[in-house]
């Protein structure tokens, strides 16, 4: 059986006054109903990869690939209209910062309802029930009250749980989480990721977790892609991260402090080792 998502030689480029700049330079991977982590520093192209899968790169950005298919459907050949029936309903994305990614003048409930009724015509009462159940599923205690709040009235952690509820309510098969916790306090990061992990596993969905936090990704994912300047430099199972070979990954691992640290100084990445690869 073909994997849920096939990506072969994906390239994303943007025109600048010095010619086209490629931000994703031909990456390939397959994804089944599993949890894949994409790690990399800022500007490594990991977010662009996520957006390219949803065909959200807007002109003048250009996306090309030898193959970019979801459940056998060629994403790059879909019209905007066809993409709309895939977005949200089959592939969904949790964005980085709920402060900016939720509409400030719509209530939380309205925004979640919109995600649902865009894909399913349901009577109002059933929509409301589904919203409350979904809000409970992301561990919001008082869903009735929260549904009537505006985004500026909820905390960051709660906002992100609302975001997750909104993205999962139409029942997608693949969830892309683009740095879902980097805008949150450390204390609620684990909470939010636990919720994502829980829901994704019980519904048997695929997950792409995009992050710059190696630790986090190795804890929540089955497989890890390490990206650097638009290319995949390392691909391994989460448990085998310790035996990674690429100097970039090794450098990142070496720069992570441990609780019983004995080093005086953490090492700095030596980029000359892989420059030009």
């Amino acid at each position, binding site marked *: 059986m073909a994997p849920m998502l096939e990506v072969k030689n994906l390239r994303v480029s943007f025109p600048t006054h010095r010619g086209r700049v490629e931000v994703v330079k031909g990456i390939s991977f397959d994804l089944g109903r599993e949890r894949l982590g994409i790690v990399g520093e800022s500007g490594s192209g990991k977010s662009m990869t996520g957006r390219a899968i*949803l065909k*959200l790169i807007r002109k003048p950005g250009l996306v090309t690939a030898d193959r970019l298919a979801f459940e056998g459907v060629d994403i790059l050949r879909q019209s*905007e209209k066809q*993409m*709309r*029936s*895939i*977005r*949200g*309903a089959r592939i*969904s*994305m949790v*964005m*980085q*910062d709920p402060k*900016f*990614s*939720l*509409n*400030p*003048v*719509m*209530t939380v409930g309205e925004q979640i309802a*919109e*995600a649902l009724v*865009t*894909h399913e015509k349901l009577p109002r009462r059933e929509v409301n029930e589904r919203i409350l159940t979904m809000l409970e599923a992301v561990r919001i205690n008082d869903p009735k*009250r929260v549904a009537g*709040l*505006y985004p*500026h*009235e909820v905390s960051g952690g709660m906002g992100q749980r609302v*975001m997750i509820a*909104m*993205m999962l309510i*139409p029942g997608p098969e693949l969830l892309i989480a683009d740095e879902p916790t980097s805008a949150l306090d450390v204390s609620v990061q684990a909470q939010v990721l636990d919720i994502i992990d829980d829901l994704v596993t019980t519904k048997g969905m695929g997950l792409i977790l995009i992050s710059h936090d190696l630790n986090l990704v190795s804890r929540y994912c089955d497989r890890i892609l390490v990206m650097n300047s638009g290319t995949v430099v390392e691909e391994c199972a989460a448990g085998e991260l310790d035996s990674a070979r690429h100097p970039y990954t090794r450098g990142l691992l070496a720069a992570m402090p441990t609780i019983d640290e004995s080093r005086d100084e953490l090492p700095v990445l030596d980029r000359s080792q892989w420059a030009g690869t």
Partner: protein
Amino acid sequence: MSLEPQIAMSPTPVAPSRRKWGRGLSATVGFVATVFLTFLGLLAITFFIGRVIPIDPVLAVVGDRASNEVYEAARVAMGLDQPLPVQFFHYVVNVFSGDLGQSVSTGRPVVEDLSRFFPATLEMATIGIIIGVALGVPLGVIAASRQGSVIDQIIRVVGLLGYSMPAFWLGLVGLALFYARLRWVGGPGRLDIFYDGLVEPVTGLLLVDSLIKGEFEIFWNAVHHLILPASVLGFFSLAYIARMTRSFMLDQLSQEFVTTARVKGVPERVVIWRHAFNPIRVPLITVIGLSYAGLLEGSVMIETVFSWPGIGNYLTTALLNADMNAVLGSTLVIGAVFIFINKISDVLYRVLDPRAR
């Protein structure tokens, strides 16, 4: 955030609604108080400016050949011999009892003049702003949602023309083309000469008055006369509103929550109108309000070109004749319009933006 302490402090379900009602009452009282204070400030400024400018209102009444005794008598009769604060007090009392004094140049009470001239401007400005908003907002939204396209370029050029074309020139060309050559619209003035004075003024707005009396012929005649000057005014506010709408929309369309809406699979039409346009209604109200207030001040150029008996014309004539009561009265009306529009905008902000509640 604001809900939590409220719930904590209100054990019975009745309490929140009573609190809300009390808050509404105190808000209304505060609102009236600020309007009153702003108005008083406006009165003070217009009054003192009126007194310090080097125009002698006595001379305007008695003429420059009057003897000293006559001059003094007129000065005392006008109350100008009293100290300024006393004069101001009398002025405020008079204004609040609806007396703005006598106009020197028309010989009628200023209040009567204003009730005749201001509705003419109000009518023209209102039709103008309706044209400006009805066309300007959609044009701005279309331009922004197709940034860089041919349509966008055309809309931007139209906007630029509205900024750079002189009003009187456009008015004259409009008259020459649509009135003199094509005969599509009525000429200068508010009505054809043989309809003049046939309708008893109720509101002073000809369109409304003629409909109240059921005089449809006069109504259509008034429309014919109004449409061209209102369109010229509308074109200028259209240009401004379209440009502002476009830039507000471009700003919103690059926001994350717009991407969120697209991720949800929402149709582009909904993305643009519900997600990008709704949040810009608040700044747009400011733009439209200011634009409307600007039109209500009376465009002297347009009123002159179209022989429109509006407040811009009245104020200019009064200024040239040193008719201080008329000048102060007009300034007051214009200032009151500004205050009124600002207050309406404030109320609308609260309705449209949950963050401002």
